[in-house]
């Protein structure tokens, strides 16, 4: 009888998780559709948001779920972008799906390399390692200009039509749909991963690595694995960027992009995939809005937004809303 209860509770909990996955998927698709209807003429921006969302999700995996502090996460994104771009330009792999595969591979390898270095320290020194890494990646890409085009950027990426039917055109519909589908797939996979035994292990490591070691698990190996996964996700985002804009440049390996992605993540709320998405959408839209309204002095507005978020929503936008809702529900019970 007791076991049955146990199984029932477990099943209910499992279903609740599954329900939230589906809800999350539905939210993404509905938002994507709304974006398409509201801004049919600005799909390029929406596609860019999708690519950056993949970067921020990937950052959330290591920062939000594992507690790794990094200001160098664009190294993974940029490696994916360059992998896809180099595959297209130098090896003639122009099928968009294969380019994304190349990006995932490139990102995962970069994730492995970065993980090995970054995981050697904690806290502030860790932050510094990540900064050093992103600069090394940037310099390396600048030096290897016969492969990467150096500071002129890697141009001439011409992806084939998607599954031979849909060309990547001026209006960017194909790129947008491609991006949204990619994001939706990644999101669902990540939802599964963060609730899997491995996801649980990583949450444990974030809270108390010594405890995890006493359970006989190696925090370093688990974190390294998460870094590779994170690299694959960021690499997919980079590849999407390469496919949709058909050019890759050094900015995709920059400290600026790394810092921006961290800002977006904290803005939305760390440790939640929804938070990562919220942060990306809000930041990118806000930036687009204010920079179009005043191309000369919009930075002040962005700064004010960040300050306001820290002052009024200390857990990030999504984190704070979620906490309020949870409290409501708690009170209702």
């Amino acid at each position, binding site marked *: 009888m007791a076991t049955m209860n146990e199984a029932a509770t477990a099943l209910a909990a499992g279903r609740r998780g599954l329900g939230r996955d589906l809800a999350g998927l539905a939210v993404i698709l509905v938002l994507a559709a709304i974006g398409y209807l509201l801004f049919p003429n600005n799909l390029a921006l929406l596609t860019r948001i999708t690519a950056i969302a993949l970067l921020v999700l990937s950052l959330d995996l290591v920062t939000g779920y594992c507690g790794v502090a990094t200001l160098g996460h664009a190294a993974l994104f940029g490696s994916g972008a360059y992998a896809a771009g180099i595959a297209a330009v130098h090896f003639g792999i122009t099928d968009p799906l294969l380019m994304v595969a190349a990006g995932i591979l490139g990102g995962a390898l970069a994730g492995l390399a970065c993980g090995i270095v970054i995981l050697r320290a904690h806290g502030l020194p860790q932050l510094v390692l990540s900064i050093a890494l992103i600069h090394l990646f940037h310099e390396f890409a600048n030096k290897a200009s016969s492969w990467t085009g150096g500071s002129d950027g890697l141009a001439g990426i011409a992806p084939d039509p998607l599954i031979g039917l849909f060309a990547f055109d001026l209006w960017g519909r194909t790129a947008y749909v491609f991006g949204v589908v990619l994001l939706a797939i990644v999101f669902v996979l990540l939802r599964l991963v963060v609730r899997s035994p491995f996801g649980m292990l990583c949450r444990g490591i974030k*809270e108390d690595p010594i405890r995890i070691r006493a359970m006989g698990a190696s925090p370093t190996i688990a974190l390294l694995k998460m870094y590779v996964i994170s690299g694959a996700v960021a690499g997919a985002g980079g590849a999407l960027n390469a496919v949709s804009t058909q050019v890759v440049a050094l900015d995709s390996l920059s400290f600026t992009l790394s810092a921006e992605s961290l800002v977006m993540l904290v803005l939305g709320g760390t440790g939640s995939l929804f938070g990562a998405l919220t942060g990306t959408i809000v930041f990118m839209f806000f930036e687009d809005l204010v920079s179009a309204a005043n191309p000369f002095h919009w930075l002040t507005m962005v700064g004010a937004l960040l300050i306001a978020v820290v002052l009024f929503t200390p857990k990030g936008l999504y984190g704070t809303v979620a906490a309020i809702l949870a409290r409501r529900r708690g009170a209702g019970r």
Partner: protein
Amino acid sequence: MSAIFEVRNLKRSFGGLAVTNDVSLSMAPGDRVALIGPNGAGKTTFVNLVTGNLKPDAGEVRIGGETVTNVDAIGRVRRGLVRSFQVTRLFQDMTPAEHVALAILQRDGRAGRLFGNFLAMSGVMAEVGSLLGKLGLRDLAHRPVREIAYGQQRLLEIAVALALKPRVLLLDEPAAGVPQSDTGRIEQALADLPDDLAVLMIEHDMDLVFRFAKRVIVLAAGTVIFDGSPADATKDPRVREAYLGSYADAGSAA
């Protein structure tokens, strides 16, 4: 019966001061041993040496006959040497069920799996249910740890350790910080530990030591000064001198 856990001539000094000096002990499956000693006797260093968090200057540690002196802490856990912590180290946002499930999966080498919700893995959950049931934590299985009383957190520490199916269990002050009213449940849990498990308990609470242990090892200034039955310990003049003092009466009363 052959020894499951052996320590031979373990030495470690810090800056010329020998904190652990030539310590040896041997335990067989089913042993219930208490390690006691006054503050500064070197108990913490000893635990760290045994669990692999510190490297000894000399000596040897063996688990199940295998020398593990050069194996790291994680490897020793995998070979069956599991410890609990003096101050609970639990994940505040996770539930007891999740703690125990994670330990079980880790033990089975499945904690690295990327997919599958273990709450829906019936085999794992059945084991979680029975373990938590044994320790009286079933009702709390799905509440986050930070909402649970400290006494029950201590029980959960033991549950996590047991979930790893240890051969040797190192309990570091399992009742520390627990209100008097709850110590009974912890003692019960200790009494219910599997019969074939070798347990080494480090403890201050002499009542608990005398009720639990069949054998007492007394550490003072880094060396073992006594190894024998609890009753003999209270009579040993060196132990009296080094440690027991006022506890002696309490001991003989028991």
